[in-house]
């Protein structure tokens, strides 16, 4: 199914979920599995994908595939930035990546852009 043809779903998450499902099914096939029971994705706040939109997209792209009825597990990871002045990693409180110690704003993001397929449960 072409994500561009999903009416009313003008969100990039449909295409991304399709791609995640394609990768998952490829691994499931290689492992000679008949069914996919769950997909685990790791999502960072800077990935540009919304959890709700992903869940919606999952319901749109899975029917008719080996992952029909499967569970979508979303594992969120926080943003981590490097503070040059303090020479340490910190977790910013919001989207202004200000070091809690020295108050300098960091542009060096070390974690938070993830959009990874971590696990596929099969049988």
């Amino acid at each position, binding site marked *: 199914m072409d*994500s*561009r*043809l*999903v*009416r009313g779903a*003008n*969100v*990039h998450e449909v*295409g*991304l979920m399709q*791609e*995640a499902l394609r*990768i998952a099914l490829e*691994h*499931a096939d290689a*492992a000679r*599995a*008949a*069914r996919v*029971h*769950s997909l685990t*994705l790791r999502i960072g*706040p*800077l*990935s*540009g*994908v919304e959890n709700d939109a992903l869940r919606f997209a999952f319901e749109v792209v899975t029917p008719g595939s080996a992952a029909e*009825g*499967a*569970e979508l597990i979303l594992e969120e990871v926080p943003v981590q930035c490097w503070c040059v002045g303090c020479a340490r990693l910190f977790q910013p409180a919001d*989207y*202004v*990546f*200000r070091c809690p110690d020295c108050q300098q*704003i*960091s*542009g060096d*993001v070390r974690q938070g852009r993830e*959009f*990874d*397929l*971590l*696990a*596929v*449960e*099969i*049988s």
Partner: protein
Amino acid sequence: MTNSPDTASPHRVLHLHERVLDRNREQASRNRGLFRDRGVVVINVLSAPGSGKTALLERTLTDLKNDVRAAVIVGDLATDNDAQRLCRSGAPIVQITTGTLCHLEADMIARACNELDLDTLDLLFIENVGNLVCPASFDLGESLRVVLTAVTEGEDKPLKYPTLFKTADIAVLTKVELADACGFDCGMVRKNLGAIAPTADIMELSARTGLGLTRWYDRIRGLVHVNT
């Protein structure tokens, strides 16, 4: 919702570490290699609809006509209105009509490049689909990203769409000739851009009056010069 337990074969978990965007990322790397080989600087231009991407590019193509050989790939959900406007400059323009897709992807750029003679170009602008959310995740193989916001929008646009603004190499405030009429606080948006995109170069300009364009052109000429 889970499937009922399968009695025939036990469940197994495949532990993976697949980056879902790898396919796009790999195509973007191929695009980047192609652009480097042909000596073309590529600028991905992003903003909300109506922030003045087309107006800035129209003016830039015309003003730099004699010193930079430029082309534009322009993405829109529908119509080729922007391509028609840009064509008046005489520069090669390729329109991508995305249908309902809210952003451009690297493979679309690769296909659009087949319609351009890259050897005759110094600079390629990619005018992305007007959208401050979806294009953030898609590398197109560009040399740098320019994110626009107009004085007719709110000063807090960068705070509301941090993911995209954080990817900016240059953040441009457009339509500054209208700032007073709109009661727009330029200092406030500069502060917000600095907080969200601390490494971005911040510019203020007006494609209509020409205010601030010298700095924009100097930056472009600098990039093209280094590349050739």
